[in-house]
């Protein structure tokens, strides 16, 4: 199988879906002539032209709204946020239009749209440019929310997201765009809502997603060296949550850690803890622990950023703690 960068897997997913369905188009800042701020749309303008690869001014509310309106008319827009930090200015469109149109119109209209782009901290971008929006969007009924960590998952899930008749938030990672992974030549889809066991293990369940997936795998490796056999579950979809996969694993291991990029208060991490303690209470041998950002605004300075972002070492120590080591 060829090895692709995540950005190439994303580009291929868009390209294939645009070839398959001419209702699909992409819009956002720099997606066309510039080939994408992070080159996830490389070559698309050349192939599909300005009609379907639409450069926009810096008007996130404007082009999100245009996407929503176009989706209501039967098109299949893909909205690229240069980063999800800039979706904050379009928050109302996502919350009050995208997530509600289908319901509010009693099913007369649907809103098949994908909002995608890099999410969470990259490297030394400061507090306004280092935020994870998982907690905000996963909270909202009406949306589906995806977060990918490998080229394979990125392609398969993005294709599913584009075909999905509902509004989908699709999180990528700037620092992972260049990571390579195997991607089959043949077409494939990954169903939305299914977690993936990235490493199986018997002693502790480590639930993770997005940028924390490689870190978690690293932590599992470190744990293995200490004879702790960690099962790493990559959620891939945050909403709807694959509760069954989580619970099944926890019932086997009786312990769980959740590791992710994002602030601690509430959010996806707390939701997972809630589900585990509620559904698998009698199986739990230790409290579920979370490793995520510290509850702080992200500073620019490299050393501080590195402390705030959960490291493999921090995750390891949580794994040990829930194992009472």
């Amino acid at each position: 199988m060829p090895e692709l960068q995540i950005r190439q897997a994303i580009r291929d997913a868009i390209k294939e879906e645009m070839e398959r369905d001419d209702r699909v188009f992409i819009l956002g800042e720099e997606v066309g002539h510039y080939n994408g701020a992070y080159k996830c749309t490389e070559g698309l303008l050349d192939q599909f032209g300005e009609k379907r690869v639409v450069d926009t001014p810096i008007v996130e509310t404007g082009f999100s709204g245009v996407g929503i309106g176009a989706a209501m008319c039967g098109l299949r827009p893909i909205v690229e946020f240069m980063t999800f930090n800039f979706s904050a200015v379009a928050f109302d469109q996502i919350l009050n239009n995208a997530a509600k149109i289908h319901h509010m119109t009693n099913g007369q209209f649907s809103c098949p749209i994908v909002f995608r782009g890099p999410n969470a901290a990259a490297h030394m971008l400061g507090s306004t440019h280092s935020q994870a929006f998982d907690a905000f969007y996963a909270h909202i009924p009406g949306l589906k929310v995806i977060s990918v960590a490998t080229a394979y998952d990125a392609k398969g899930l993005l294709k599913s997201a584009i075909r999905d008749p509902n509004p989908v938030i699709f999180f990528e990672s700037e620092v992972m765009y260049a990571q390579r992974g195997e991607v089959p030549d043949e077409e494939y889809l990954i169903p939305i809502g299914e977690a993936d066991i990235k490493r199986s293990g018997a002693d502790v369940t480590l639930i993770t997603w997005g940028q924390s997936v490689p870190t978690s795998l690293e932590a599992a490796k470190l744990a293995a060296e200490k004879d702790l056999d960690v099962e790493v579950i990559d959620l891939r979809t945050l909403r709807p949550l694959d509760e069954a996969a989580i619970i099944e694993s926890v019932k086997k291991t009786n312990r769980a850690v959740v590791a992710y990029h994002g602030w601690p208060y509430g959010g996806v991490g707390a939701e997972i803890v809630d589900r585990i303690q509620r559904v698998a209470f009698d199986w739990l041998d230790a409290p579920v622990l979370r490793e995520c950002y510290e509850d702080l605004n992200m500073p620019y300075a490299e050393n501080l950023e590195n402390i705030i972002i959960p490291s493999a070492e921090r995750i390891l120590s949580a794994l040990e703690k829930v194992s009472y080591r």
Partner: protein
Amino acid sequence: MSTASNTPAPDQEALPATLAGASHEETLRMYREMLRIRRFEEVAARAYTRGKISGFLHLYIGQEAIAVGVSEAMKDGDRIVATYRDHGFALARGCEPNACMAELMGKATGIVGGVGGSMHFFDRDKGMWGGYAIVGNHIPVAAGHAFASKYKDEGAVTICFLGDGALGIGPTHEGMTLAGLWQLPIVYVVENNRYSMGTPLERTLPVKDVTVRAAGYNMEADRFTVTDPMQVRERLGEAIERARTENRPTLVEILTYRFRGHSMSDPAKYRAKGELEAFRSRDPLEVTKRALMELHGMSEEKLEALDDEIFEEMSAAETFADESPMPDPEFRFKHHYIEDESEAD
């Protein structure tokens, strides 16, 4: 039911030329539609005070000529995108008063099954594309509808309404920026009824004539005081055809007035003295009625009979709504997600 007493000496003013040029049949048709909207809302207002309707209820009374006029100017496939003040548009587009009234009462038979209420009327096939309750957030969405029309080359025009109070908010600016930049087939119509809630436009708008902004968006502009539905049909018709044939967007400001408060909970004490009366004397509904009498020789009796008939229709709608069932409890799980792709358009 007579409304003659509402109109202090309208006969002193000459009838607008647009009405003078209209046939009896079309004048009557439009008058009838305006009157239907008014009586519908009067019945709704009464139902509200009797506790049958809850939440917000924003009446369109005074502005009816706009909904009726634009509806006449539309072709099949064209669409209206409106604010929470949306009953008039729905009725003008031919939506059933029964379904509309039932919606106000949150009944299963409502135009959107009781999930939307007054602020969220939608009837896709009739070109009634909402019904948006967050000020300004429909402006980019409507640009999206126009974008899709151009993308599909389908020749449909989107007519998007907003209040004078919606001009300051960012989404309005962004939507108009894209409509102008991309030259979308859209007409933005500001219904300037002088107030946003209790605030007169002097305290919300830095400029008197908002169509000066059209140039900054590269749109055409039009601005007029509404007199009657024929005039609205004509003026908006021009903008609609320009959108259709040239993909050229227009920003229109229509000076109008709402006779009621912002919503049912607003006693509207903020009006200047005599203001309401002055506007009432130019009520497009009454002006159109005068045209029917003076230009087309319709008798008071005939007009009253029409009014009675419409009042009956709307009272029947109230009864229909009263007697309709509430949604089934299980209905609350519907329409959050589409499971099957084929269900999406």
